[in-house]
């Protein structure tokens, strides 16, 4: 089952078959399972009629999709044990918040297993989870946490923003011999885009430039990348938009080169603001491209508190394309950036 033959570096096609982000995930899962009998999926409600918001429905190999009890911690260990015993599991969580019950397994076991034994073994394990705001779901069902997982050595963290990326990166994650945390924003599921039919993998650790521009580099992933793109296009801003696609490994080369050209950096991180991905990008770019920066970098994200439930509070809590556009415009004008 040589996975490497599917490696592909071409950029997203602009024409051709258009499918949803959800269908791209489904197709990737299906193709992975068909191509490699070692691939199986496991997760609470992964096998039910809702099929993880549709991303698991009608798979060719249903017999390799297993439901589980509400036992996310042990189930992560089960997935790890299976990965150490010849299989390539995809462990699925309907919400990233439920993964918190499994942090011992994720941080102490999954992430450490290779380092702990001198990197002698493989741990081909993908953990998929849906992230981000729902609809009045409150503090326990709305988290994102990509930067938090990336803090832990031994975990790759992937956050696709487009259908094309969703498919290619999920297949690359399954093909990878180390653990990958694969985070899908619920609000991207219905987005459509061109996606090749055949099996292909995109490199983990390679950013995607979503928009070319000269005066400001905006780094944004997942839903934030799509919002930033909307903001830039609607206001026709001279902004370079970089979607790192994988939070870890992080493609600092692409980001730094862009900042060296534009002289300005903004990170849009739909997550808690302290530390995390946004801080890492600002810190790493400042360390590397200090002399190119013309003004202080800016981070945009959530307030430093748990998510509220009421609609009015949600609308104040979460950034929108409009608010991103305002911030970019202010930054380009050298004004104080509204956060």
């Amino acid at each position, binding site marked *: 089952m040589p996975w490497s033959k599917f490696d592909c570096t071409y950029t997203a096609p602009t024409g051709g078959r258009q499918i949803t982000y959800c269908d791209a995930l489904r197709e990737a899962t299906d193709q992975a399972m068909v191509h490699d009998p070692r691939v199986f999926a496991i997760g609470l409600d992964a096998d039910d009629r809702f099929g993880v918001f549709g991303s698991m429905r009608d798979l060719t190999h249903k017999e390799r999709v297993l439901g589980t009890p509400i036992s996310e911690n042990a189930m992560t260990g089960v997935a790890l044990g299976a990965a150490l015993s010849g299989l390539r599991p995809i462990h699925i969580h309907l919400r990233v*918040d439920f993964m*918190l019950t499994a942090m011992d397994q994720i941080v102490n076991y999954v992430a450490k297993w290779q380092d702990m034994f001198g990197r002698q073994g493989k741990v081909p394990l993908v953990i998929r989870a849906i992230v981000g705001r729902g609809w009045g779901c409150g503090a326990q069902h709305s988290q994102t946490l990509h930067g938090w997982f990336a803090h832990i050595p031994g975990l790759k963290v992937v956050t696709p923003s487009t259908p094309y990326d969703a498919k290619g990166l999920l297949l690359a994650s399954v093909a990878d011999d180390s653990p990958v945390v694969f985070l899908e924003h619920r609000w991207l599921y219905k987005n459509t885009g061109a996606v090749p039919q055949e099996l292909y993998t995109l490199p983990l650790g390679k950013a995607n430039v979503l928009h070319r521009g000269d005066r400001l580099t905006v780094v944004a992933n997942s839903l934030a990348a799509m919002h930033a793109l909307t903001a830039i296009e609607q206001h026709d801003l001279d902004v370079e938009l970089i979607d790192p696609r994988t939070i870890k490994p992080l493609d600092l080369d692409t980001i730094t080169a862009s900042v060296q050209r534009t002289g300005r950096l903004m990170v849009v991180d739909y997550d808690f603001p302290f530390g995390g991905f946004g801080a890492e990008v600002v810190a790493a770019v400042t360390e590397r491209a200090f002399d190119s920066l013309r003004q202080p970098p800016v981070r945009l994200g959530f307030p430093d508190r748990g998510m509220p439930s*009421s609609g009015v509070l949600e609308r104040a809590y979460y950034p929108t394309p409009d608010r991103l556009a305002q911030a970019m415009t202010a930054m380009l004008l050298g004004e104080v950036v509204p956060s």
Partner: protein
Amino acid sequence: MTRPHTINRERGLRLLRTMRTIRQASERIAALYPSNVMETPVHLCIGQEAVAAGVCHHLRDEDKLFLGHRTHGPALAKGLGLRPLFAELYGRSTGCSRGFGGSMHLFDPAHGLPGSSAIVGGSIALAVGAGLSAQLQRADFVGVAWFGDAATNAGVCYESLNFAALRKLPVLFVCEDNGYSNVMPKSAHSAHDIESLAKVFMPTVAVDGTDVLATFAAAGEALTAIRAGGGPRFLHCKTKRWMKHQGHEPCDLGVVDRDRDCPIQKLETFLRGSGLLQGAESTQIAQDIEREIDDAIAFAAASPFPTPELLEA
């Protein structure tokens, strides 16, 4: 376990009133839900009213009840008002959680509701902590853990049972077993029998959770034992969920018979048979409750929304 029920009129009517309040509030929520006035996921308790009413009628304001995601029934039975409940569902600042919680996160410490949680299982441990607090303070309140059948699969449930038993804490574990975790039947999520498992740790009683007099009696005995210093007790209540796991639609799993399984009908039949309920009393109660619900909804709809400054860290 099938002793003949005995109950006085006042108790009988209180239980009926509580169950009807839960039922009617839930049905109103279901009716309003498609209009999106409530921007929050709801897990309704229709069909499960007997557990909430039967257990909570023994609880005092000082007793601390920790709930999961399926909150409305037990919260109302424990003393949460309809106004703060509806205002919370409407996302208003007058809601019991000021609009920050939504359906799954209700807060009313004055009535012994220190909060509820939407991550399945974890709040069981909080109830054990309340029991520990009572023990350490030599206070006589009780911690009550409220959870579904599928929560018994979460490791935190076992850890909690063990610790409560080890320290003989005043904790009542209430398993509201509707046989399902969303659409997954119990046979797919539990290799164990819940009663046998709980018995490894503490005295355990199983009751028909659609029979409010049965749950009332069993909860009464369990709480008497707990308050007498007898350590934790486990109440396993088999019941039925009439609605889908979440939202306003009826359950389509084909396991509910609304005549056979209705806890309200069961109680009314019993009360009428015993001469404790007469003529149009039941209709009167229902109408009173409708008015209270009308009032609560009017209150909620007229209440201000919370202001974004509250989001400051």
